[in-house]
C-alpha cells in the first residue's frame, strides 16, 4: 500500500529535473513546479472523486463524470482549432459519439461490466486518444483547405458541391490524424509499455490477463479515433463554406 510519504519521496525525480534546469539555465523551474503541483492537486482531487463515485456505484454519477471529462477534452481540442468557426460543438460531438460507440460495444460483448471502475477509465482512454485525433484532424483540415484554396474554388466554379471540392483535403486530414495513433499501436509493448497493462500488472493482475485487456484497449485506440476523425471532417469542412457554397476562410 502506497503512503503519502512514498509520494513525497518521489519528488526526488522532480528535484533531478529542477537541478538540471538550474544548472543548464533552461529556465524551466517554474514549469516544473507548476506541473508538479498541478498534477498532484488534480490527481488527488480526481482520486477522491473516483473513490466517491465507485462507492456510490450509480449510473448517473458515472455518466456525469464521463460527460465532464468529455467536455474538458472537447474544449481543449477545440482550442487547438483556431481559424475554424465554432469548433467546440464539432469536437464534442466527435468525442461523445466515440465514447458511446466504445461503451456500447464493450458492454454488449461483456468485455467490461457497467461499473464506474471500468467505464470511467475506459472513457478516459477514449477521450485522451480522440482528443488528440480531433485536434490534429481539425488543424489539418484548416491548413489543408487554406493550402488547396485554389483547387477548391476551381471545383466550386465547375458546379461541384463543397463536399466534393473538399474531399481530398478531408481524406488527407483523416489520414494524417490517424497515422500517429496507428503507429503507437504498432509499437505497443516493443517501444513503450501501454498504460492500462502497466497499471494492471502493478496492481497484481496476471501479465497475460493484462495483455488481453490491453489488446482490447489498443483496438479501441484504432477504432474510436477513426470515429472522431470522420465526425470532425464531415462536420468541420462545412464551417469553411457559407450557405451559397462559397469558400469562407478566416471566419473565426
Amino acid at each position, binding site marked *: 500500500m502506497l503512503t503519502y510519504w512514498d509520494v513525497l519521496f518521489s519528488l526526488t525525480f522532480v528535484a533531478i529535473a529542477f537541478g538540471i534546469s538550474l544548472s543548464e539555465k533552461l529556465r524551466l523551474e517554474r514549469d516544473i513546479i507548476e506541473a508538479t503541483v498541478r498534477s498532484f492537486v488534480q490527481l488527488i482531487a480526481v482520486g477522491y472523486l473516483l473513490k466517491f463515485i465507485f462507492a456510490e456505484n450509480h449510473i448517473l454519477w458515472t455518466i456525469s463524470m464521463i460527460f465532464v471529462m468529455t467536455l474538458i477534452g472537447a474544449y481543449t481540442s477545440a482550442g487547438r482549432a483556431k481559424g475554424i468557426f465554432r469548433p467546440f460543438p464539432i469536437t464534442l460531438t466527435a468525442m461523445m459519439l466515440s465514447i458511446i460507440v466504445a461503451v456500447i460495444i464493450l458492454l454488449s460483448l461483456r468485455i467490461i461490466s457497467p461499473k464506474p471502475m471500468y467505464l470511467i477509465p475506459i472513457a478516459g482512454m477514449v477521450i485522451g486518444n480522440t482528443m488528440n485525433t480531433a485536434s490534429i484532424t481539425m488543424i489539418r483540415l484548416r491548413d489543408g483547405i487554406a493550402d488547396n484554396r485554389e*483547387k477548391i474554388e*476551381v471545383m466550386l*466554379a*465547375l*458546379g461541384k458541391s463543397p463536399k466534393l471540392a473538399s474531399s481530398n483535403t478531408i481524406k488527407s486530414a483523416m489520414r494524417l490524424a490517424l497515422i500517429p495513433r496507428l503507429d503507437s499501436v504498432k509499437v505497443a509493448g516493443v517501444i513503450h509499455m501501454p498504460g492500462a497493462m502497466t497499471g494492471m500488472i502493478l496492481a497484481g493482475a496476471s501479465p497475460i490477463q493484462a495483455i488481453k485487456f490491453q489488446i482490447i484497449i489498443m483496438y479501441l485506440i484504432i477504432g474510436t479515433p477513426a470515429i472522431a476523425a470522420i465526425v470532425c471532417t464531415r462536420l468541420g469542412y462545412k464551417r469553411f463554406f457559407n450557405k451559397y457554397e*462559397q469558400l469562407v476562410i478566416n471566419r473565426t
Partner: protein
Amino acid sequence: MSHIFTLNNIDVDYGDKKVLSGIFLNIPEGIFVIVGPSGSGKTTLLRLLNRMLSPSSGEILYKGHSLFDYPVRELRRKVGMVFQKPILFDGTVGNNISFAAPDISDDDIKSLLEQVGLPKDYIKHRSDELSVGEAQRVCLARTLSTKPDVLLLDEPTSALDPTAVKTIEKLLWEFSEKITLIWVTHIVEQAIRLDGNGAMLYNGNIHWQGKTKHLHETEDEIVEKFIRGDLKK
C-alpha cells in the same frame, strides 16, 4: 441588344473596405472586357457573376432573372470560369475534363481538346507534364465541358508567354461567336485588341464604358493615365 447580366447598384464591402461601390452595368452578349489597374475590383466583380462571391447590397440579373433564382451549382455550370493561374487536378487531362462532366465520352473529350487547339492524344497526358499554356487550354476545355453560356475569364493569359497569349486570345475570340465572354484584364492593349464592349474599373467604381477599341480616344484624365501606365491603385 439583349443583356446577359444586369448589375443594379452593387456594393461589395470587406469589413470597412469598399471594394465595389454603386455599380450599374449592363453586360451584352458577345465579348465584354472589364479593364482596370490591379486592385480596382475587377476580379471581385467577375466573381459576383457566378456567385463565388455575394454582393453586400444591390441586385444582379442573369438573363432577366435574379441570380439567386438559379440553383448555385447549375448557375456555375452555365456561367463557367477560367482562372488566372491554370489549376489542374492530379491524373490525366482526360480525368480533369471528365471530373467536370462525368458523363462525357472520350470522343467528346477529344473534340474539346481539338477545339482548344490541343492534339486528341493529350487525353492520356498527365496533367503535371503540361506547359503553362497547354494547362490553361485544358482548363478552358474543362470549363467548356459543362456547356456554359457564359465564360468568365479572370486574366486568363497573364501566366502565359507572348506567343501563347496571342493563340489563346484568338481561340477565345472565336468562341465569342457562340458563348458570351466576360474578360478581365489589366492590360490596356489586350482590352483594345479584344475589340468588344467594355468597362473600366478604378477604385471600385466604373469609370468608363464603351467599345474598347475607342479607349485611346477617350479624353478622360484617369483613362489617359491608365493608358500611359501612370495610374496607381
